[in-house]
């Protein structure tokens, strides 16, 4: 699909970076402020979708985009499961236990494993939603030609 008017492209250039950084903020502060892995991941996916809508899919080489996003998505969720399994070996030898030290509540590096889970689940959610959107765009491109 072709891109939109120049004004929208210019505004999107400014906004997309901001939304992306906001998404990362929501993920990293998941255990301190409202939001977390899911909210941040969805916001980051929204930033990418905004870029694709504004600039159209002609500039992007969509095939590599999809394989890239589904690759990062599989890698991220693999890390989540490995993190869960690591707690089987360390700590209390039970699946998905919070084995890292809890630290002071309110600190950035405080809630043990939770920030790591937030990060990996956030990347996984962003990758999954991006894969879904890109798959739809590619299907529309290929089936219309």
């Amino acid at each position: 699909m072709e891109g939109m008017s120049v004004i929208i492209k210019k505004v999107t250039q400014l906004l997309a970076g901001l939304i992306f950084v906001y998404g990362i903020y929501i993920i990293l502060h998941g255990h301190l402020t409202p939001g977390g892995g899911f909210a941040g991941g969805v916001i980051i996916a929204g930033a990418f979708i905004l870029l694709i809508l504004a600039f159209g899919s002609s500039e992007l080489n969509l095939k590599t985009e999809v394989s890239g996003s589904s690759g990062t998505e599989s890698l991220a969720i693999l890390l989540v499961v490995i993190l869960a399994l690591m707690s089987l070996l360390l700590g209390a030898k039970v699946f998905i236990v919070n084995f890292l030290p809890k630290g002071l509540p309110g600190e950035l590096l405080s809630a043990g494993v939770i920030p790591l889970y937030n990060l990996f689940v956030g990347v996984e959610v962003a990758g999954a939603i991006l894969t879904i959107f890109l798959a739809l765009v590619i299907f529309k491109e290929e089936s219309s030609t």
Partner: protein
Amino acid sequence: MDLTISMILVFMIAGALFAIHAKDLLSAVVAMGIVGYGLVICFLLLKAPDLAIVQIVVETITLVIMVAVVLDSSRNEIEATFDRRSILQMVTGFIVFAGLLYFFLLAIENLDSLGSHTLRMSEAYVNGAVEKTGSVNLVTGVIFDFRAYDTLGEAVILYTAALGVLTLLRLKGKK
């Protein structure tokens, strides 16, 4: 609180009815947005900020996908022939739904009313949760520590959906 939620719910029901009976598919999709964003306001009123953030962005992405699908195909709804049969269908539907509503009211009669919820299982999720999980945000504490197994299943569901959409939208199924 009960009154404000009910007022928003009236708008959501009106939006839902319009979404179902809209002639043009695009306006039906937008009417679904009324219900979705009304839900966001309800979440904020009911002290659920996490859900409001997730719902508002998920609703936007769902609308983008639906509009992309509708614009790529036909926008006109199938003309529903408003003949005797559909009136009969409407009446029977109304009677069945009135019965279901009455049955539901009978069921929830002696349950806690809005706001007078007592904690039992989530007692441990609230009192002393900060020491146990270290997370100040209790909902994140529940999601990633007390019931982390649910969230693992949840991430797998989204992964399956992405894999399913990739499988469904490939051009050639058989060699």
